[in-house]
């Protein structure tokens, strides 16, 4: 029975793992965007592809860059999923998963996968959500064989209580646990009924939350995506002027210039979808590195077919 539960658990995780990967680069999605046909990709991947063909790679529906929308929720799910996986992998995941069917799963074990976590500018993990993640964890430890139980506890946070701690943000919903005799009053902030003797504490929490909610939005710098350019209609000197304007190099033949400009615009626009976009100089540096790398690769690899 325990074994069966285990495999259901692992199978579901494998499925989720797959769903969180971008269908273009096969990595966990980095700054995900959703198309109007409801498919998700890394912002950079799909923007690059739409320069090849203006359609969704999955369902072939006509898609333009302007149709893409950020999908912050998915980004957050991925961050927390990776966090969860990271914590549980050493103890639970690695041992168990290898014994279950290995299908589609070679990717999960490679430590390189965690690179994309570094790539994203992940903000410090939200404490509250982090604690919520303990619930699947404790489920995992319940289903492992007895011998591993002790190990399991080491990887969760130091707190020893197995009880699920409900963070303060959920207190309003716990009215059922409160003394029934207490009269309920409506919280003026979140409109939830709260027992009278708790209302002050609740209100404090509520107001605190309101404040933190508003703040990050204010300081968020809004970076606007660059307009699309019809490169084929632009003269060399205009392209050079544009490159100069963006702080990019202006040497090279026509094709190099076009590729350079396009690469930068795609990267810049993908970066706009991030909560914390990197600085312009970092983007320029990345473009230059990519260009140099491609130049190196191009020589030996073109020998083969046609």
């Amino acid at each position: 029975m325990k074994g069966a539960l285990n495999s259901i658990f692992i199978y579901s995780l494998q499925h989720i793992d797959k769903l969180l990967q971008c269908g273009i680069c096969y990595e966990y999605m980095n700054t995900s965007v959703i198309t109007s046909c409801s498919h998700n990709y890394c912002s950079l991947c799909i923007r690059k592809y739409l320069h090849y063909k203006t359609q969704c790679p999955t369902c072939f529906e006509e898609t333009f860059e302007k149709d893409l929308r950020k999908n912050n929720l998915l980004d957050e799910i991925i961050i927390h999923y990776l966090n969860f996986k990271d914590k549980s992998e050493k103890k639970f995941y690695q041992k168990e998963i290898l014994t279950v069917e290995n299908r589609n799963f070679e990717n999960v074990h490679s430590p390189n996968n965690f690179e994309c976590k570094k790539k994203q500018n992940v903000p410090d993990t939200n404490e509250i959500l982090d604690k919520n993640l303990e619930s699947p964890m404790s489920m995992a430890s319940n289903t492992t064989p007895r011998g591993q139980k002790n190990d399991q506890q080491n990887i969760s946070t130091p707190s020893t209580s197995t009880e699920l701690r409900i963070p303060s943000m959920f207190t309003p919903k716990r009215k059922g646990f409160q003394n029934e005799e207490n009269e309920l009053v409506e919280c003026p902030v979140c409109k939830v009924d709260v027992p009278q003797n708790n209302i002050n504490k609740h209100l404090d929490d509520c107001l605190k939350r309101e404040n933190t909610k508003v703040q990050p939005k204010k300081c968020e710098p809004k970076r606007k995506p660059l307009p699309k350019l019809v490169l084929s209609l632009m003269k060399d000197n205009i392209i050079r002027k544009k490159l100069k304007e963006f702080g990019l190099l202006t040497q090279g033949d026509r094709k190099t210039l076009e590729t350079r400009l396009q690469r930068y615009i795609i990267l810049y626009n993908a970066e706009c979808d991030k909560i914390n976009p990197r600085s312009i100089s970092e983007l320029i540096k990345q473009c230059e590195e990519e260009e140099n790398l491609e130049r190196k690769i191009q020589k030996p690899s073109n020998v083969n077919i046609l």
Partner: protein
Amino acid sequence: MAALPRRIIKETQRLMQEPVPGISAVPDDTNARYFHVIVTGPEDSPFEGGLFKLELFLPEDYPMSAPKVRFITKIYHPNIDRLGRICLDILKDKWSPALQIRTVLLSIQALLSAPNPDDPLANDVAELWKVNESEAIRNAKEWTRRYAMDN
């Protein structure tokens, strides 16, 4: 050489760990973007019993553009020409990064089972296939025996 996209590494690993039945694809020792492919002729097709060698190359901008695939073994097929070039929509305008090496090779295997003389690449073969199918199939079997068996 350097900076092989993770996607290519993953696809390669999976091809080795869970090969497609009737297909083997092995990356070249010196170039990880170049694959040596062998497809077995599907049952109940004129290519049955044959082992067909192909080469598959992942271009620089894969998966944005399709892999380049070519038959090395000679084959009598309306959609494959004398140079081994293949007429298959997903290798051309129907390519999508949602496809992969695996699906491409499966499609090629399916093409051997279901030749399509209405969209020909080898005109003479396609013509015969339409006019006198049994003779065309006889030719295909003969070519399979001659070029795709016991090399």
